[in-house]
Structure formats: C-alpha cells, structure tokens
C-alpha cells in the first residue's frame, strides 16, 4: 500500500471513470482496484466503458517497430561528440533531468512529498560510497575502446592539423608556380627574348622574285633566321664556308641590294 486512495470527494462513478484506463492496464494499487471493482459491480455504464477501453487498447498496441537498432546505434557512436561522461552534480537538483523529475515527484503524491529535503541518491554518490567497487569497475573498463577516446581524439586532431599543413604547402607551391615568369613565348611575338643570331643582314632588290631569292640563299648555303626588319632586310646565317667570302660573293649579285656582316653582339 502506498497511501493512494480513490478520491471520494468526487462521486464513485466519477472517480471510477477517471481511473478506468489504469484499471484496464492493470497498474492501480490494491486499494484503488478494490474500490473500482466494487463500483463496477453496480454500474453498467462503467462496465461498458471498461470493455470499450480494453478493445481500444487491443487495437492500439498493434504494430511493431521495424527500424534497425544496430545501424541507429552505429550512427549514434559516429555522431558522439568527443566528450567524456559528465560527473554527477554536487546537487542533483541542478541537473536538467534530475530537476524536472524531482519536481514531478514532489508534486505527485503525499508519499513522495514525505521525502522532500532529503538529498537524492545518485550512482556517482554510490560509487563514492563504494570506492573498492568503483576502482574495480574503472579497472575493468580501462580496456574498453571508449576509455581511450580522449587519446584517439588527440591523435585525430594531430592528423587533421597535418592535413591542413599539407594543403597550405600545396597551395603555396601552386601560387608560386603560377606567379613565376613564364618561359613560353609565342612564335608571333614582336619581341623575342632570345633574338636569333645571324652572320649577316641581306636586303634584296625590290623587284626580285621569291624564287630568285631562294636560289641565291641556297647557292650561298645561307638560310634566313630572322626578319624581315624595318628596312626589309633578313638576318641570314651561313651553314658552311667562309662568311666573308660568301658575303663578297652575295654582294656581287645584282639581285642583292645590300649585304652587311654582323659582328658578335650586333644582333642582341
């Protein structure tokens, strides 16, 4: 007996109607059950209501949970923040859950009000009262994966920092590579960084055909390496033979208007 009795400030019929759901689920204490049973014997309306409640309960409990507990549990561990278990608060009433639960207890019944003011017993307090057991439990759990969590968290942080460092280094290398002066130069660029060097500059007569120009250069074993210049001259290089002799020979050709020997450094 826990001191709970049917409130007969209400009529027995009203009190019975109020408690019928818990009569149907079998959780009333002996006094309440006895009081309701007495009323039910004489009240057809309450008996009918009780039968309806039992049918409702039967229909209501149908259905099973089909969710996968293991995958849900795996996701819980995956999302578990790296935080150790919180110790019991010095005053259990400061804990969020303990606070509301204690408040509910105190407002619930005279029986629970009788314990008001007495500190609640938490597992943490129990562990403090049983140091030997606590030590044994702690030792037993030291091999559990969870117990090494803070160390794993530290390693994870270091790995994360190393990854960040590599990313920064790669970013720096990419930036410096992109900002370095390019060695590539388009063939059509006006200013070549390394101008072609030749042995002489040749200016053909204005009316000389291209085929004639090509024959003259072939006979002199020369080839054009640059030009035309602003004065319509071409820089040529001699592949073999004496340069001065070749220049002399070229200068005697009527199709050649001018040939000038280039000295080292003239073309740069």
């Amino acid at each position, binding site marked *: 007996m826990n001191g*709970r009795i049917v409130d007969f400030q209400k009529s027995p019929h009203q009190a019975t109607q*109020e*408690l019928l*759901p818990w009569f149907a*689920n*079998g*959780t*009333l204490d002996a006094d309440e059950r006895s009081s309701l049973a007495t009323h039910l014997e004489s009240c057809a309306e309450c008996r009918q209501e009780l039968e*309806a*409640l039992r*049918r*409702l309960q039967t*229909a*209501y*409990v149908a*259905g*099973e*949970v089909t969710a996968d*507990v293991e995958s*849900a*549990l795996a*996701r*819980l561990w995956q*999302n*578990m923040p790296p935080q150790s*278990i*919180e110790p*019991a608060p010095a005053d*259990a009433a400061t*804990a*969020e*859950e*303990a606070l*509301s*639960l*204690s*408040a*509910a*207890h105190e*407002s*619930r*019944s005279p029986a*629970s009000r009788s*314990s008001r003011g007495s*500190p*609640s*017993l*938490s*597992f*943490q*307090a*129990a*562990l403090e009262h*049983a140091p030997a*057991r606590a030590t044994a*439990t702690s030792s*037993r*759990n030291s091999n*559990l994966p*969870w117990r090494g969590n803070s160390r794993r968290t530290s390693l994870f942080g270091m790995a994360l920092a190393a990854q960040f460092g590599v990313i920064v280094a790669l970013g720096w290398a990419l930036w410096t590579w992109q900002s370095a002066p390019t060695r590539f130069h388009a063939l059509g660029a006006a200013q070549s960084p390394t101008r072609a060097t030749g042995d002489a500059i040749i200016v053909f007569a204005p009316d000389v055909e291209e085929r004639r120009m090509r024959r003259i250069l072939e006979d002199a074993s020369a080839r054009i390496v640059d030009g035309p210049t602003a004065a319509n001259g071409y820089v040529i290089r001699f592949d073999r033979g004496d340069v001065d002799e070749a220049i002399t020979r070229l200068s005697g050709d009527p199709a050649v208007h001018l040939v000038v020997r280039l000295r080292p450094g003239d073309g740069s």
Partner: protein
Amino acid sequence: MLKRSQTPADPHAAKAVRRAIDADDDSDAAVLARVAAGDRVAFETLYRRYFPRLHRFLERMTRRPHLVEEALNDTMLVVWRKAASFTAQSQVSTWVFAIAYRKALKAMQRFDEPVADDDDDEESAGGMAQRQSEDHAQSPFPAPDAALLQQQLRAALQVAVARMSVEHRAVIELTYYHGCPYGEIADIMGCPVDTVKTRMFHARRRLRNLIGPRREDLP
C-alpha cells in the same frame, strides 16, 4: 528495482546500489550504474533494450519518421552523459522516458504544432479512416470481414491519435501501449498526477469524438 524512498543515509539503499553495479546484475538500474562508470558495452545493452519502446514512443509523439532516430539518439546521448546523476527516486524507464518526452517536445518546436489540445474537430477521423479502408477494400484480394474490420478500426485509431495534441498522445501512448501507471506518466511528463488524469479524460473524450461510430466496433 530501486525504491524511491532510498537516500544516502539509508545503508540499505547504498547496499542496493552497490549490488546494482555488480556486473552479473542485468536489471536496468545495474546496467545504468555500469554506464555511469563509463562502460560502453553496458550502454549498448541499454540502447538495444530501450530502442523498440523509445522508437515507438517517439514515433507516436513526433509523427515524423525522419525525426525519430535523431530524437532517440539525443535521448540516449543524455543517458550516456548523465547516467551518474540518475536519482534512485524513480525507475530507470521513467527517467529515460522523461528525457525522451522532452526531446520529442523539443523536436516538435520546429513545427507549428500545438503541444496542448484544442477543440477543432472539422472532420471525423473515423470518416477519414473509413474512406481509406474503402479504398483498400477495392483491392482484388479482399480481407476477411473480421480482419478488415480490425484494420479499419486501427486505421481510425491511428488517424484519430495523430490529430490529438502531443500531451494527449503522450498519455494515451504511455497508458495503453507502455502500460505505465499514472504516477509514472506524471513523472515522465513533469506534471501533477491530477493533470495526467484530466488529460486522459479529455483525450478519451476527444478520441471518442474523432473515431465516432467506429468506436463501438472496436475488436
């Protein structure tokens, strides 16, 4: 099971808790005591033990399947963190469900759904459920009459309960499915026992109105 009258000054209580953290004790209190000591295996045991009940409860509370696992894991995360502050004044199940109830309320805050009941009653849920059942009855494989009737009534119940407030759904669910005494329901919902009785009274009346004539046909 731990009794609510235990206090640290009570040597029998301290003895009971010491006994509870014994590895051979498989009660909820014993498993939770091992969780308080950081035992991950014990936590997983408790998780698997409570998963079906919590899943069903949170599903009925939130009525949004995608919220259920999140609220359930949030609940068990609190259990893991605060196991050491569990007070032996209540049963473990009451403590866990109280956390779950608050997580359900918090999850429902994202939606504009009233926690307390209102009296809007536009359409009978029984009527809606009957239409659903009639649609189902057009199946080329009709169920036997009794099974069809039961299916209709379950559908009516499901629709009706879904249209009730979170508070009314909680008292209905905790009483009819989880078989809780009204005192435990008061602990879980954080309200006086008289409030639980009042809520149940109104919830039954609302259920009666929503189901309508189908109520008499409940199997």
